[in-house]
């Protein structure tokens, strides 16, 4: 029998560590339960981001969340990258390492986007084999997140939640359930997000993600640029009930507000999981021809005297 959360501790309510908040954190050491980092922003730098990270690691639990593993790609795995992940995880005592069920590029290229795969037996066998290789190399279970997506493939033969379930069970890995992604993909692909949340293996959910998105009218974009909306909170509440709770993290990657605002947003989760509800903003709806970019990138700008 699989232990709840693969045996990982419920770390509570955390926020994504973003460089614009470095100064605030170092000055105030806010009462945040834990931080999640974007792994790629720290595995190579020997400058200020790493210095700040080391100080934060002394005071808070940290989780590493990557965007470049490309577990679904048909290119070979990048073991130089994996070695860097493993080394950093050891140095900062990362509680777990996560990434996305996606591919980022092929033929040696990197789109720096989280691209979906068709959900069928071929993809499943491919991804499961790669997860096993990665887990053996990292010497720890991998935790994979459901992607927000904008296309589906004619070659798919199963739902995303069926694929995730089979993948997690066969590869013996953990899941990071991004309930905002479930909502966004549900709108984009005409499925019931509650059915998705009910359909994944709850004991394998190590972590939740929350975020805001942009409703474009006939589809949604995962923009991480706003507060969480009510339907996403309701999905979170359902997921919490089904899992018994897991570490919960708010992502905010564009139009990033002051730290206290971001922290207050994730703390609303307390109200939702105790069924007291909470205040939620109106959904952001736009019909602009200039669609915002999904999943904003995390480029750390240098600091110059």
């Amino acid at each position, binding site marked *: 029998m699989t232990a709840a959360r693969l045996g990982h501790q419920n770390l509570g309510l955390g926020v994504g560590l973003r460089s614009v908040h470095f100064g605030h954190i170092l000055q105030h050491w806010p009462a945040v339960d834990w931080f999640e980092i974007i792994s*790629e922003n720290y*595995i*190579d*730098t*020997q*400058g*200020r*981001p790493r*210095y700040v990270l080391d100080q934060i690691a002394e005071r808070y639990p940290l989780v590493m969340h990557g965007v*470049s593993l490309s577990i679904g*790609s*048909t290119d070979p795995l*990048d073991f130089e*990258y994996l070695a860097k992940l493993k080394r950093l995880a050891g140095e900062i005592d990362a509680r777990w390492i996560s990434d996305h069920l996606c*591919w*980022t*590029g*092929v*033929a*040696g*290229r*990197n*789109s*720096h*986007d989280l*691209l979906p*795969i*068709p959900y069928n037996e*071929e*993809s499943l066998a*491919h991804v499961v084999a790669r997860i096993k290789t990665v887990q053996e190399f990292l010497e720890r279970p991998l935790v994979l997140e459901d992607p927000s997506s*904008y*296309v*589906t*493939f*004619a*070659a*798919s033969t199963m739902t995303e939640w069926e694929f995730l379930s089979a993948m997690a069970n066969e590869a013996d890995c953990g899941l990071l359930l991004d309930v905002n992604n479930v909502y966004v993909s549900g709108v*984009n*692909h*005409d499925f019931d997000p509650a059915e998705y949340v009910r359909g994944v293996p709850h004991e394998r959910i190590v972590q939740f993600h929350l975020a805001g998105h942009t409703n474009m009218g*006939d*589809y949604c*974009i995962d923009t991480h640029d706003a507060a969480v909306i009510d339907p996403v909170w309701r999905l979170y509440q359902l997921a919490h009930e089904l899992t018994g709770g897991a570490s919960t993290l708010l992502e905010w990657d564009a139009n990033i507000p002051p730290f206290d605002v971001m922290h207050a947003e994730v703390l609303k989760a307390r109200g939702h999981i105790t069924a007291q509800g909470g205040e939620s903003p109106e959904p952001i709806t736009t019909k602009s021809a200039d*669609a915002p*970019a*999904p*999943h*904003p*990138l*995390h*480029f*750390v*700008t*240098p*600091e*110059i*005297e």
Partner: protein
Amino acid sequence: MSDPHPLMTLQRWMQSVITNPRGISAGIDNAAARQWIDVASDDVEQVIGRSQKRTSIERLQVYGNAYFARLVECMREQFPALCETLGQELFDGFALDYLDKRPSTSYTLSRLADRFVPHLETTRPAAESAAPGWADFLIDLASFEWSVAQTFDAPGTEQSGVITPDDLAQVSPDDWPQTRLIAAPCLRLHAYRFPVNAYFSDFRAGRPLSIPPAAATWLALSRREYIVRRIPLDESEFLLLQSLLAGQSVGAAIEAAAEQSADFDAFARNLPHWFQRFAGEGFFTKLVKP
């Protein structure tokens, strides 16, 4: 015959489609995509499903828009002064051409622009005269901004410490010529055809910008307390540091720099001040005595 690697085929097709700068339909109909999946844009539902409200092409367009929009935004953040100089529309054109011709091959965005300066050098218009022109200024500025980012992430001296002016003063005159000075790993020396450092200061201060006249300038980029520092040098200082960084002893470095100096007396007079200044800026991490 069935495709033995349909996932690989699908990924190569999709990558070709969404990274085509002429758009999704053009990308689907392009030979680069059709070598993988030979489907016309009108029939793309054979590959990409439609939703209740959106066509397959519209759905793919989200990825096509995102590919260039997200990476161009990163390029703007990496080269803010160059973007301001060119104006965003023109800068975006340069960035799009770069991303199209030299797409990212790295897992990290910090290397997204690692071939941008060589790309600009390769694609620049032919020089109209022997004197440096506006294209050279843009290349110098791009090179400067790229170097700032490299210095920011480089190994530094914050933990290891540096040689101080007092440390230098304690080296005996007899040992001094044969002493070697080990440079801070974040120290980089640059020679530019234009005063890009002063121009960058104007940019940072929000002062009006105009491309300055060509003038050779020399600059050290280093880091202190994790903040990138810009230290203007004169030519003799640059030459002296260049020899020291190449591993020459103090005596040999002085000799090499002095040979290229136009004013030997001034060179000799300034030498002690320069070494004190270099040490004060934290340029060296170690003294190796003979």
